């Protein structure tokens, strides 16, 4: 069975500093993986997706993620946080259906 584990339930950064949101996956083969963002009282928006074409994936709003098979990781990064990045982030694996991680709440301090 496929699954994802988000290692931090909450991350707090200062505006202008780097963001790292960690995700590990469990799969018997190289899966597809997605990152979604959810702003308060809003639905989920696709940030980026990995589908085995390239291990470094660039998404919207300056986010990117690197697929590392040796570490079974798909961490989400951004060089410089903006206040508008404050939201809930979900790592997702399609395993017959979309399987969501528990989410990481990102806070950005001015």
């Amino acid at each position, binding site marked *: 069975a496929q699954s994802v584990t988000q290692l931090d339930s909450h991350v707090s950064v200062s505006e202008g500093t780097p963001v790292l949101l960690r995700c590990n996956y469990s799969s018997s083969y190289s899966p597809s993986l997605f990152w979604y963002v959810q702003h308060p*009282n809003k639905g989920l928006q696709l940030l980026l997706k990995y589908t085995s074409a390239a291990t470094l994936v660039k998404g919207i709003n300056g986010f990117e993620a690197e697929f590392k098979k040796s570490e079974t990781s798909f961490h989400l990064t951004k060089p410089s946080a903006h206040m508008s990045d404050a939201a809930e982030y979900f790592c997702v694996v399609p395993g017959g259906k979309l399987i969501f991680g528990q989410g990481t709440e990102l806070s950005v301090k001015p």
Partner: protein
Amino acid sequence: GAGVSQSPRYKVAKRGQDVALRCDPISGHVSLFWYQQALGQGPEFLTYFQNEAQLDKSGLPSDRFFAERPEGSVSTLKIQRTQQEDSAVYLCASSLLRGLGQPQHFGDGTRLSIL
């Protein structure tokens, strides 16, 4: 273009009442999904439609939950004899392609509160 639209945005009902939640997917999207999101949790899959056919309803928590998409576009999620544990945000998503594993476009959800 218009995204996925859900109505109502908020619904308050008394325990035991029936509720109906509506989803208007993106025009032309073949696949439609319903999810339940409890407070502080990730969305949990409820059911999946390909056009008008309900191909997977394995996530529906009980027989009080019923979903339909009779003409392959608008979908309704109905919950009968609501219970307090049904309180959650119900998200609808659609996808242009068939299949459960494609990236999906989400609506803003319906926040259901059962008193």
